[in-house]
C-alpha cells in the first residue's frame, strides 16, 4: 500500500492551461488573504476573536463570508459555461468536454451546498436569536462545529481545483455514471465527501436552530407572536433534521459502492440506481424549501418594514409555511417522472406538485396585500423583494407546467428545466438572501450599506437574470438538452449569445455588490446606525445595539404582542432601562470547533485519495476532540454586572446622541409609532 494512497504528482493541474489558471487563482486567493491579515497584523484578532468565537453573530458573519466567496466561485463557473455555449456552435469552443462537465458539476454543488446553505445559516445565526429575545443559540459550541464542517466541505471543493479533478457527474451525482465502473478517478469522491461532511454540519445546525426556537424564547414570545423570519427558520430546521439523513444515506451508500466495491447502485450484480435517485430527491426536494423558506421570511420582514405597515395575513403566512414544509416531502418524484413509474404514481406526484403551489400563492398575495395602501420606501432590500415577486411568479407558472407528467416527458432535461429552477432559485433564494444581507448589515456592523450601489446591483441582477434565463426557456422548447459542451444547431446560437450577455450583466451586479461593500466601509462614518434601529423596524432584533453586545439583551425583553419591538416603541418602553444589570454567563471561546473542521477537511482529503492511515488518524483525532470538549465542565465565563453596565451605559449614551430614528429623514417616512404618552 502506498503511503500517499493514489495521490501522485500527476494530480497537479499542469495538463491544461485553463485548469492550471483556476488552480493558480485559488492558491493566490488564499495566499493574498493571509498576506492581508499579516499586513494588518491581525492574526491574533482573527484567531482569538473570530475563528474561536462561539458568539452566534460572529459565526453568522463568518458563514456569510464563506457564502459570498463561494458565490464568486460559483459565478465564475456559470460565466465559463455561458461563454463556452455562446461560441461552441459547430466547434469545440475553449473548454474540453471533461473540463466543461467538471464546471457544471461544481457550479451546482457550490451554489446549493456552499453558497446558499452557508448564506442561510449565516442569516439565521445572526438574526433569529435576537428576534426571539435570546442571548445565544441553544448550543453555541455545536454551532461552531457546524460552521467549520461547512467550511471543510467548501475547502474540499476548492482543493479539488488544485489537487486532482472535481466530479463530472453533475451536482446530483447519478449512478451508474458516478459509480467506480465509469468514473474511477477522484472527482466523484471529492463531491461525495464535500457533501457528506458539510451535511453533518447542516443536521447539527437544524437541531440547534429548532431547540433555540422551542426552548430559548423571551418571556411572552409565544409561538404566534414570533416574527415570520423565525417561523420560516422553525420549519426549515425541521426539514433540515428530517431531510438531510436521506442525503447522508444516498451518498454514504454511493461511497461504499465506489470505495469498497459494493453494489447498491451499480449496473450489474443486483444494484439499483433508481433507489439512489429516489433517496437523493427525498432530500433534494425538501432542500429546495430549506433554502427558500428563510428567504420568504426575509421578504416578509422587508415588505412589512418598507411598506411601513403590519404584515398582512400573518396567520395565513404561518400556516402556508407549515403546509409547504409538510407538502415538500410529497413531491420528490417530479424530478424523475421519466424514470418509468406507473401513470398513477406520476399522476399523484404531479397533483401534489400543483398543490404545493397553492400555499406559495397565498404568500405572494399576502406580500402584495401588505404593500397595498402601504407607504412603500424603495430601499435596496425592498427593490430585491419587488423584483422577486414579479420574477418568481413566472418561475412558479413554468413549474406548474412541468408538474404535468406528459409535458415533463417533453421538457425533461432540456434547458427549459434549467430556466425554471434558476427562475425559482435566483429571485426566490438569492434575492431573498441579498435583501437580508442589505437589511441586516447595519445590525451586524453598525453602519448601513450604500443605497445607490445597492440599487445598481439590483438592476444588474434582475436585467441580467432575464437576459440569461428567458432564452433558455425558448431553447428548451426548441429541444436543446442541458449540459451541452458543443452543438450543431445554428438556430440555438443567438439565444445562447443573449444568455451570455445576461451572465455578463449579472457579473456587473456582483461587481456592484463588491463596490457597495468597499464604498460603505470607506464612508461608514456618514452612515452609522446609532439607534440600532436603522429602518424603523418591527421585531426584536432592532431593540439591540448595532452591532449588538455579546449578550444581545442585558435584560430579557418582556413581549406583549406580535411585532414586539414596534409594540414597545408604541408603549414608549423601547429604550427604558428596566432592571439593574446582573452577572451574565457567556460561552468561552474555543478552538475545538475549528480544530474539528480542519480534521474534517483532512479526513475528506484522505478518503478521496485512499490515504487510509491518515483517515483513521483524523477520525481518532475528531473523536478525541469531542470527548475532551464534552468532559469540559468549565465552558462558560461570567461577564460581571459592572462590565455589562459599562456596555449598556455606552449604548444609552449613543442613543441619547441620536434621539430620532434614521428613517425619519427619508422623504417617504410615514411616521414612527407614537408612544402612548404623547399620542
Amino acid at each position, binding site marked *: 500500500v502506498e503511503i500517499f494512497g493514489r495521490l501522485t504528482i500527476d494530480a497537479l493541474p499542469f495538463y491544461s492551461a485553463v485548469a492550471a489558471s483556476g488552480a493558480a487563482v485559488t492558491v493566490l486567493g488564499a495566499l493574498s488573504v493571509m498576506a492581508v491579515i499579516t499586513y494588518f497584523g491581525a492574526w491574533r484578532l482573527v484567531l482569538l476573536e473570530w475563528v474561536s468565537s462561539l458568539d452566534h453573530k460572529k459565526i453568522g458573519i463568518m458563514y456569510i463570508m464563506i457564502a459570498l466567496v463561494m458565490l464568486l466561485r460559483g459565478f465564475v463557473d456559470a460565466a465559463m459555461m455561458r461563454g463556452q455555449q455562446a461560441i461552441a456552435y459547430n466547434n469545440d469552443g475553449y473548454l474540453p468536454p471533461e473540463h466543461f462537465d467538471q464546471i457544471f458539476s461544481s457550479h451546482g454543488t457550490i451554489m446549493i451546498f456552499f453558497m446558499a446553505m452557508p448564506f442561510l445559516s449565516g442569516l439565521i445565526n445572526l438574526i433569529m436569536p435576537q428576534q426571539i429575545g435570546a442571548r445565544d443559540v*441553544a448550543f453555541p459550541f455545536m454551532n461552531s462545529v457546524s460552521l467549520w464542517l461547512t467550511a471543510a466541505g467548501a475547502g474540499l471543493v476548492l482543493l479539488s481545483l488544485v489537487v486532482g479533478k472535481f466530479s463530472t457527474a453533475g451536482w446530483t451525482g447519478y449512478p451508474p455514471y458516478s459509480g467506480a465502473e465509469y468514473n474511477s478517478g477522484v472527482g466523484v469522491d471529492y463531491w461525495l465527501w464535500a457533501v457528506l461532511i458539510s451535511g453533518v454540519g447542516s443536521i447539527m445546525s437544524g437541531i*440547534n436552530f429548532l431547540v433555540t426556537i422551542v426552548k430559548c424564547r423571551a418571556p411572552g414570545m409565544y409561538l404566534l407572536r414570533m416574527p415570520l423570519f423565525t417561523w420560516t427558520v422553525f420549519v426549515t430546521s425541521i426539514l433540515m433534521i428530517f431531510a438531510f439523513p436521506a442525503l447522508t*444515506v444516498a451518498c454514504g451508500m454511493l461511497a461504499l459502492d465506489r470505495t469498497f466495491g*459494493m453494489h447498491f447502485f451499480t449496473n450489474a450484480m*443486483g444494484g*439499483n440506481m433508481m433507489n439512489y435517485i429516489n433517496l437523493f430527491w427525498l432530500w433534494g426536494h425538501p432542500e429546495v424549501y430549506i433554502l427558500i423558506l428563510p428567504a420568504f421570511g426575509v421578504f416578509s420582514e422587508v415588505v412589512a418594514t418598507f411598506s411601513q405597515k403590519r404584515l398582512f395575513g400573518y396567520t395565513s403566512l404561518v400556516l402556508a409555511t407549515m403546509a409547504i414544509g409538510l407538502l415538500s416531502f410529497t413531491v420528490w418524484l417530479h424530478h424523475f417522472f421519466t424514470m418509468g413509474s406507473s401513470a398513477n404514481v406520476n399522476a399523484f406526484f404531479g397533483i401534489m406538485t400543483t398543490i404545493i403551489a397553492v400555499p406559495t400563492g397565498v404568500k405572494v398575495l399576502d406580500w402584495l396585500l401588505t404593500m397595498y395602501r402601504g407607504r412603500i420606501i424603495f430601499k435596496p432590500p425592498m427593490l430585491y423583494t419587488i423584483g422577486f415577486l414579479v420574477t418568481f411568479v413566472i418561475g412558479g407558472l413554468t413549474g406548474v407546467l412541468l408538474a404535468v407528467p406528459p409535458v415533463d416527458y417533453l421538457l425533461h432535461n432540456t434547458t427549459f428545466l434549467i430556466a425554471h429552477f434558476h427562475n425559482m432559485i435566483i429571485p426566490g433564494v438569492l434575492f431573498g438572501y441579498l435583501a437580508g444581507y442589505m437589511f441586516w448589515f447595519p445590525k451586524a456592523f453598525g453602519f448601513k450599506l450604500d443605497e445607490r450601489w445597492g440599487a445598481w446591483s439590483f438592476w444588474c441582477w434582475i436585467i441580467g437574470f432575464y437576459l440569461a434565463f428567458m432564452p433558455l426557456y425558448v431553447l428548451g422548447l426548441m429541444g436543446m438538452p442541458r449540459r451541452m459542451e458543443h452543438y450543431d444547431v445554428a438556430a440555438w446560437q443567438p439565444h445562447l449569445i443573449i444568455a451570455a450577455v445576461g451572465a455578463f450583466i449579472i457579473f456587473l451586479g456582483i461587481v456592484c455588490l463588491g463596490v457597495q461593500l468597499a464604498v460603505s466601509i470607506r464612508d461608514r462614518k456618514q452612515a452609522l446606525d446609532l439607534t440600532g434601529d436603522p429602518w424603523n423596524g418591527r421585531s426584536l432584533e432592532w431593540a439591540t445595539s448595532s452591532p449588538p453586545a455579546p449578550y444581545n439583551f442585558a435584560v430579557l425583553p418582556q413581549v406583549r404582542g406580535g411585532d414586539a419591538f414596534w409594540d414597545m416603541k408604541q408603549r414608549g418602553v423601547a429604550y427604558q432601562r428596566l432592571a439593574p444589570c446582573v452577572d451574565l454567563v457567556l460561552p468561552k471561546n474555543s478552538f475545538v470547533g475549528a480544530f474539528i473542521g480542519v480534521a474534517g477537511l483532512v479526513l475528506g482529503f484522505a478518503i478521496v485519495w485512499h490515504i487510509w492511515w491518515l483517515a483513521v488518524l483524523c477520525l481518532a483525532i475528531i473523536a478525541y476532540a469531542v470527548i475532551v470538549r464534552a468532559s469540559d465542565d468549565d465552558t462558560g465565563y461570567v461577564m460581571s454586572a459592572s462590565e455589562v453596565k459599562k456596555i449598556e451605559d455606552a449604548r444609552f449614551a449613543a442613543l441619547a446622541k441620536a434621539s430620532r430614528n434614521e428613517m425619519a429623514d427619508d422623504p417617504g417616512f410615514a411616521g414612527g409609532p407614537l408612544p402612548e404618552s404623547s399620542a
Partner: protein
Amino acid sequence: MTAATTMDATQISPVRYEERAFGFWLYLMSDVIVFALLFATYVVMLGNTAGGPMGKELFSLERAAGETALLLLSSATFGVAGVALARADKSRALLWLVVTVGEPHCAGVCRRAYRHHDGRHPLDHVQSPSPHDGVMA
C-alpha cells in the same frame, strides 16, 4: 464577586439540561430517518443477490425474533432503571442496571445453545458477490 458565585453561575442550569435532552431527542429522530431509509433500501434490494443465497437461507426468523425480544426487554429494563434514577432510588436503579447488563449474557447463552442445536453458524457458508472494482478488488 467571590469565587463561590463564579462557581454557581457556571453550573449548568436545569433549563440547559432540558435543551440538551430535546436536542438529543431530535438527533435520535434524524437517526430514525437514516434507519428507515436503510430498511427501505433493504426491502427494495431483498431479491438482488446476484445469484447468491437469499435472505431466507441465511437468516432464521425465530432467532431474530428471540434476539429482538431480548433487545426490547433490555431497553425496557433500562427505562425502569432510568425511572428509579429520576426518583433518586439508588439501590433500585442499580438492580435494574444489573438486570439490563445481565440480559445480553442470557442472549449469549441462548445463542450458544442454538448453535449447538444447529451445528454451525448460518453465515458460515455465505459467498458474497465478488467486488470487481474499488480498493477491495
